[in-house]
């Protein structure tokens, strides 16, 4: 017989959990005591619960493993909500263990009590309140099972304090069966055959690949398939790295800040092959505008509710992308014959490419695009790049050419500012020794800046690329373009001296103000300061904007290009 607290830890050991990101408090004291008495599961103490969940999220994004966070009841839980919602939007498998007040106190407005199951319900894949210590092990097993199968997502397990004190036999089930939860894995073979047929008939095809390719570990298969077909490939923001960005068949990211060629190809294609992507508003813009062209759409997704949600699909294939691509490759064994007109389509695409939509003006100031280009060079294109949310995120997505999956770590769906630094922490725990750059801005970084302390404690040599324009850049860009330059609350005054701030936490700080200093500074950070956290404060051109741009509510071909202005 062992206590509920020990059961929690034993479950984590059984799941081979290496790291738990968390913050202790009253309701989880028994669990922290059980954690203290063993060494297998290591605990990473953050400085704010939000960061614990973000770090667990990035641990998963960069490794495929399930991230785990542990927090106390009440404010511990409410602080995790942003992180849980972020993971939910991007379908990231995660288990969040929360303390709760003792069973007898639930509903009495006890100290640090909140309705965890109620508060988290709309932003989790599933959640549980454990009411009996005998259910604890099987509930945690279910949590890991649900989080990591089907369309992945975060699962919350709410554990009252008295349950962690009670004792019972520990028996960790090897598998769980749930009559109400049986996600589809294999795609329908008839549909797959139909899809292959349509692909071979396509005259103006586009492969549109999203985060589902990365989540199902199918990047390699997608690459093989795309090369066999010799079709153009575009990736969504969440799909960057699913197809190598340096490959000639890659036409760049699509969507609101996608390339001219990717957006045009997506619009004028006669066959769209959507793989683990969901046609969201940032990708296709106005669905009515998108619906003007006649085309056939093939869509592979594990979640049937993502199919025909915003764009009518002709060949829906519900299944795990990896399994479905496997079947497709079997059908496309040997030489593949595609329509000869595809050659003309490529000519058209090359013409669009000729517009060089990512060209940017030079200035006496540092251009943010230039910093990312240099970051790419200095890191050999092989770094893990985390980002916050805003202009810097788009610049990183546009100018860092990701050739491998799981290297680009950002909050695509929810668009959560503040994730960058805790994401970099999570990445380093999953990938020790890796080069990790956190591309951020002076607005975003301050939303989780307290984690510089965690980085010191665990000696995490993150390179923070702070693209500092003294503005909430993306807000300013919209205000400049759509609100007649009324810069309401987008100017950040009273910024800290980031160099001193970094130093006060025991890190290295650098301020870079001239274009010619960008590359030497980056080199210094990644070589001389390889083992240090370096906070690089790049003072950039405050007028730089992200282009191309499809304004909200506009169609994919209604792009604003840098040269238009």
């Amino acid at each position: 017989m062992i206590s509920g607290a020990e059961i929690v830890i034993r479950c984590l050991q059984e799941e081979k959990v290496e790291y738990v990101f968390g913050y202790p408090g009253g309701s989880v004291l028994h669990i922290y005591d059980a954690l203290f008495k063993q060494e297998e599961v290591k605990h990473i103490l953050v400085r704010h619960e939000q960061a614990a969940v973000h770090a667990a999220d990035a641990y998963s994004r960069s490794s495929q493993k399930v991230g785990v966070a542990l927090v106390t009841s009440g404010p511990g839980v409410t602080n995790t909500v942003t992180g849980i919602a972020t993971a939910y939007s991007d379908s990231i498998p995660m288990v969040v263990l929360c303390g709760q007040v003792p069973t007898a106190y639930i509903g009495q407005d006890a100290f640090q009590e909140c309705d965890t199951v109620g508060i988290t319900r709309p932003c989790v894949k599933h959640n549980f309140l454990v009411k009996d210590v005998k259910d604890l092990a099987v509930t945690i097993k279910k949590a890991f099972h649900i989080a990591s199968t089907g369309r992945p997502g975060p699962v919350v397990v709410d554990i009252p304090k008295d349950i962690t004190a009670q004792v019972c036999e520990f028996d960790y089930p090897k598998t769980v069966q749930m009559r109400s939860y049986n996600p589809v894995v294999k795609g329908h073979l008839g549909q797959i055959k139909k899809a292959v047929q349509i692909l071979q008939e396509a005259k103006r095809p586009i492969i549109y690949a999203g985060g589902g390719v990365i989540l199902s570990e199918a990047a390699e298969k997608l690459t093989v398939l795309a090369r066999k077909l010799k079709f153009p490939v575009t990736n969504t923001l969440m799909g960057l790295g699913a197809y190598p960005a340096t490959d000639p068949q890659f036409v760049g990211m699509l969507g609101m800040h996608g390339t001219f060629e990717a957006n045009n190809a997506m619009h004028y294609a006669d066959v769209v092959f959507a793989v683990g992507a969901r046609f969201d508003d940032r990708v296709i813009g106005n669905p009515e505008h998108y619906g003007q062209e006649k085309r056939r759409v093939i869509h592979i997704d594990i979640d049937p509710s993502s199919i025909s949600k915003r764009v009518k699909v002709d060949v829906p294939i519900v299944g795990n992308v990896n399994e479905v691509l496997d079947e497709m490759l079997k059908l496309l064994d040997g030489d593949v014959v595609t329509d000869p007109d595809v050659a003309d389509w490529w000519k058209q695409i090359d013409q669009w490419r000729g517009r060089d939509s990512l060209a940017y003006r030079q200035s006496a100031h540092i251009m943010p695009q230039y910093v990312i280009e240099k970051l790419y060079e200095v890191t050999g294109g092989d770094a893990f790049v985390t980002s916050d949310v805003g202009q810097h995120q788009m610049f990183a997505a546009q100018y860092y050419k990701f050739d491998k999956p799981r290297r680009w770590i950002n909050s695509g769906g929810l668009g959560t500012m503040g994730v960058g630094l805790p994401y970099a922490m999570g990445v380093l725990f999953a990938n020790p020794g890796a080069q990790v750059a956190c591309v951020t801005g002076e607005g975003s970084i301050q939303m989780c800046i307290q984690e510089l302390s965690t980085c010191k404690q665990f000696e995490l040599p993150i390179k923070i690329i702070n693209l500092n324009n003294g503005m909430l850049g993306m807000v300013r860009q919209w205000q400049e373009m759509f609100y007649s330059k009324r810069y309401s609350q987008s100017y950040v005054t009273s910024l800290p001296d980031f160099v001193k701030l970094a130093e006060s936490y025991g890190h290295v700080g650098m301020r870079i103000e001239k274009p010619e200093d960008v590359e030497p500074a980056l080199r210094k950070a990644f070589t001389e300061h390889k083992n240090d956290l370096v906070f690089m404060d790049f003072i950039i051109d405050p007028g730089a904007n992200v282009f191309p741009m499809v304004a909200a509510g506009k169609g994919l071909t209604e792009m604003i290009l840098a040269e238009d202005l």
Partner: protein
Amino acid sequence: MRHIISILIENESGALSRVAGLFSARGYNIESLTVAPTEDASLSRMTILTRGSDEVLEQITKQLNKLVDVVKVVDLSEAAHTERELMLIKVRATGKDREEMKRMADIFRGRIIDVTESTYVIELTGSSAKLDSFIAALDAGLILETVRTGVCGIGRGDRILKV
């Protein structure tokens, strides 16, 4: 379009709020909702009356199926089915209205299940439209209180919703 959705769901605390939360979060409407355990006490059967286009209904059923506690979902109104709603209505029954109320209840095949000197409680079962017409047929000033269960429905013949 009016649709009746039947759901088999794990009979666990919070299951109802998952369904209700889904409808409010995604902007679907619920006209009525009934829920009770089935012959297998570990399962509840929920019936939701909603309205929406075919596209919206497709999303509703897909989203419901995505809920981990949901075992099965069918749109009953897609095929032959039968539906009923129960109403209890308390009416003033004094003077000449007393006899009139009794007559109305008989015409609609209702039953009087509670009698006082001045009131009746009438139990009436049928389609929602029938219940509406009963209310419309009464003098509004005589209606003291109504309570309706919301629609429940079942497929005809071999259409069976079971695990």
